[in-house]
């Protein structure tokens, strides 16, 4: 075990720092959260800058247009970005962390050539059309139907909770190609252009009052068979590749941001006198200790991924712990602010939004089942066993 970075890793850090110091000065104003066009421009503009400097896909393989860096170098990259308060991936999330990696792993040569570069260059935004009204935790129950007609699939159905759909160009879409009831064995992974006729996006309002996600209504949307990634009916496995990435280093930026927030809270508590309240002070200490531990866990996960090439179980442990920790942090921030927190602002926004963390990308209940069943090998609950076969 060794927590020191190598000379090359430190070299990457130095050059990143120098580059960031220059580029961040010229950045435009951060857009308002409800100005979606501006958000897209801002996030894609930042991705473009990264791309031009050779940081477009630090962890993507070289033959996919990336830098081919090791997971540790990726960590250094994320650390430096956060330290410099650089913008996050924003609406580039699905492209860079889900759809892109899936196409790298499972796409044909033509698909890799078509889709990967525009993601890295900040030209195309992706969204994820997996969940449906009746298929949330039970994703294998999805019903959106795709029927083969010549060189096309004709797709009809409904998706829900599709984040950033209103600014997306492309959608990674899971559809039913098998028989009704074929569950995991009858699902196919398609690339759907969002401007195809028959696609309707209806934004949904979140509890924070914004429209981060939408409903997608699909009415006989024609999607070329060439847009299928992986074999017909093999989409479940293809989608699971995506999930493996989702639980790797996806939360590093937010973890570091959380650690920074703890420092800010401590500083502002000292200033306002709240620091004298032993209860709040102890809660700060307790949360900071847990964040430190999650930072340690992240470095363990990254080391494991460096050695073996795949993220281990640590990713699921991290997701579960971090989701709940973010909520406790937000609770603490609200308590520190007291009455002021009733005015909508950063603490309220974080507090309300933190509630999605134990729901999105697998609820905490489902995460616990995964840890208990797949990691610890405990017997499955009867209800899911009968269905998953």
């Amino acid at each position: 075990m060794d927590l020191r970075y190598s000379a090359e890793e430190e070299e990457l850090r130095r050059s990143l720092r120098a580059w960031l110091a220059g580029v961040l000065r010229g950045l435009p104003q951060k857009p308002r959260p409800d100005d979606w066009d501006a958000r897209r421009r801002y996030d894609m503009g930042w991705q473009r800058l990264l791309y031009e400097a050779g940081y477009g896909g630090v962890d993507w393989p070289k033959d996919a247009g990336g830098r081919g860096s090791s997971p540790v170098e990726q960590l250094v990259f994320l650390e430096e970005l956060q330290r410099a308060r650089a913008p996050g991936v924003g609406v580039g999330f699905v492209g860079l962390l889900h759809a892109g990696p899936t196409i790298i792993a499972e796409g044909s040569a033509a698909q890799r050539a078509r889709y990967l570069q525009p993601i890295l260059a900040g030209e195309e935004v992706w969204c994820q059309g997996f969940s449906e009204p009746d298929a949330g935790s039970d994703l294998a129950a999805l019903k959106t139907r795709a029927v083969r007609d010549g060189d096309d699939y004709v797709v009809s159905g409904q998706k829900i909770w599709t984040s950033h759909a209103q600014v997306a160009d492309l959608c990674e879409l899971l559809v039913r190609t098998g028989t009704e009831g074929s569950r995991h064995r009858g699902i196919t992974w398609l690339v759907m252009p969002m401007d195809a006729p028959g696609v309707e996006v209806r934004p949904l309002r979140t509890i924070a009052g914004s429209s981060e996600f939408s409903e997608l209504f699909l009415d006989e949307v024609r999607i070329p068979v060439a847009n299928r990634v992986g074999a017909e009916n093999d989409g479940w496995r293809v989608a699971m590749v995506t999930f493996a990435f989702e639980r790797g280093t996806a939360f590093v930026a937010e973890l570091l941001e959380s650690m920074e927030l703890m420092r800010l809270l401590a500083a502002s508590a000292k200033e306002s006198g709240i620091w004298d309240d032993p209860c709040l002070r102890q809660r700060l200490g307790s949360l900071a200790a847990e964040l430190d531990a999650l930072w340690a866990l992240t470095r363990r996960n990254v080391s494991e991924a460096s050695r073996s090439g795949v993220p281990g179980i640590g990713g699921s442990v991290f997701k579960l712990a971090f989701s709940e920790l973010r909520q406790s942090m937000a609770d603490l921030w609200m308590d520190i602010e007291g009455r002021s927190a009733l005015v909508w602002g950063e603490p309220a926004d974080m507090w309300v939004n933190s509630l999605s963390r134990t729901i999105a990308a697998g609820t905490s209940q489902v995460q616990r089942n995964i840890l208990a069943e797949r990691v610890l090998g405990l017997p499955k609950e009867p209800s899911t066993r009968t269905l998953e076969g």
Partner: protein
Amino acid sequence: MDFELSEDEGALARALRSICANRFPLESLRSRELQPDTVDRESWRELAEAGVFSLRTSEDGGGLGLGAAAVSVVFEELGRALVPGPLVASELAASIIGMTGGTEGNAGSPLPAGGPLPAGGPLPAGGLLAGQVRAGVALVGQIHLGDSWERAGGSFPGSGRGRDGILVEHLASLDALVVVSERCLQVVDPRVVDAEPVDRSLDPLTPLWRVARLPEGEEVGGPEHSRRWRSEEVLLGAALCVGVAAATLDMAVAYAMQRRQFGRPVGSFQAVKHICADMLVRVEESRCALHAAALAIDQPGVGDPVRSVAGAALLATRAALACSKACIQVHGGMGFTWEIPAHLYLARSRVLASAMPGAGELEEVVASRL
């Protein structure tokens, strides 16, 4: 000893529940989201007719002459129905300031009694009791619950003043503003208060105003009245919290029953059952603590009111916050939409909690009475 609700108390709760269902159905409340005035005078008068603002005023004074227990039963219902408006302050203004006689139930209680206030002050008792006068509150500085309690080193964040000056709820709907400070109770005309509306408040049904400086008002009570106000404000806030927690428990259970995943109701999964069972524990515990605290005020000798009010407030705020959060969790992605009212309960819990002393302070109060 019979700690069950009496027949009258049960009838009161049922009556309130039916008035809330008729007058404040969720759909009509929701049509007032993010509006400056969330409750119309007609509905307010109807609450008054049901006795909401006259419960504790003596029968001689035109009230019902009931005790804290009855008020806590009623306020649980108001919390459950998410009724907006300056409920607590209007009730307290009627029973503490508007009163022409002392509270009967309070005699001999270790809580500061305050004693009778002169009639004909700036707050007409009749108007308050009839729901014609709506009173709000601004808390200035800190008023500690325990009279004998010395803070265990250091200060606790004041409940009234935030970074933004004093935040007053529902100002546009008020006919009177009661300013509560350690030294006295004052009544201020809300129309002369220099206040700035807050763009957006966390709770869409609790509009807020920022007040940098409050004008001097007419003094209507001394330090004892302030302390009494604060204790009862905490008790009534706890009752609203219990109602909020109970409502979210019902919502969560109903959804767990109806929502199907993996071919069965999600409520059949132990993970979901356990969330609901834990909510039930919080609701039951905090409700019992609330009623015991109310009786400690009504019935001298049955308990330490300071300790039990602080304890009930601690459990009730915790229950409201935890249950409204759990309710969203049980609803999954649906819980994260504006459309589902779960977030209104979440926001209301925060509003109620922020009007209370912090958890740390409440814990210290309880500990200091051991």
